[in-house]
């Protein structure tokens, strides 16, 4: 199972919005509503920020939103803040009852 494709890096200034894409195939992202996004700060464990394509866990800022079109899922962070600087990973369920992660995107807040 090949990893989902994410840009290696994105950047934005405080207050701006950024979008991170996550491209899969007809066997994963396009096929199921099971797409999650994780935030990981340096030397910390992953934190779930979006599940089921566009749902936020309790306690996650409403500045985080998710969407999907065809085989590409997206994570949008609006009103960028310094604390949003982290690595972000998408993850999708596949038709083989497995999961696959994206390669990760490093978000830099300028």
């Amino acid at each position: 199972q090949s990893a989902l494709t994410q840009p290696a890096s994105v950047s934005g200034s405080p207050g701006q919005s950024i979008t991170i894409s996550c491209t899969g195939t007809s066997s994963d992202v396009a096929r199921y509503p099971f797409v999650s996004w994780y935030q990981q700060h340096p030397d910390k464990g992953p934190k779930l920020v979006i599940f089921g394509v566009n749902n936020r866990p309790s306690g996650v800022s409403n500045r985080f939103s998710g969407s999907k079109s065809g085989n590409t899922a997206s994570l949008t962070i609006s009103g960028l803040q310094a604390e949003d600087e982290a690595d972000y990973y998408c993850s999708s369920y596949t038709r083989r009852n497995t999961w696959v992660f994206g390669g990760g995107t490093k978000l830099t807040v300028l």
Partner: protein
Amino acid sequence: QVQLVQSGAEVRKPGDSVNVSCRASTHNFGGDYVQWVRQAPGRGLQWMGWFHPGSDGATYADDFEGRVTMTMDASSTTFFMEVSSLTSDDTAIFYCATCSSDAYLGCANWGQGTLITVSS
């Protein structure tokens, strides 16, 4: 909120096996799963497989099939992952996480991670 506590760091030689444990604070998993993820130094997250307490069964990623075994001790609500035939590529932090059937299988609860170092 489920708390997951993993076993401590270990050092192994190439060819050895290692068993990582993950103790959960709850005994009620419903339809939830427990996944295991590998993260090599400076690298991304890699899905290794998941265990379903309800069916006492596991599914493994192709990259780890035949080399990884995931189990559970129901009496102590502790999950285990054994990795055999270790190589230097297995030098990594290994995480366990619970993934809820009520949340489109999003994994909201993570262990603190276990560092495994493989070195001769």
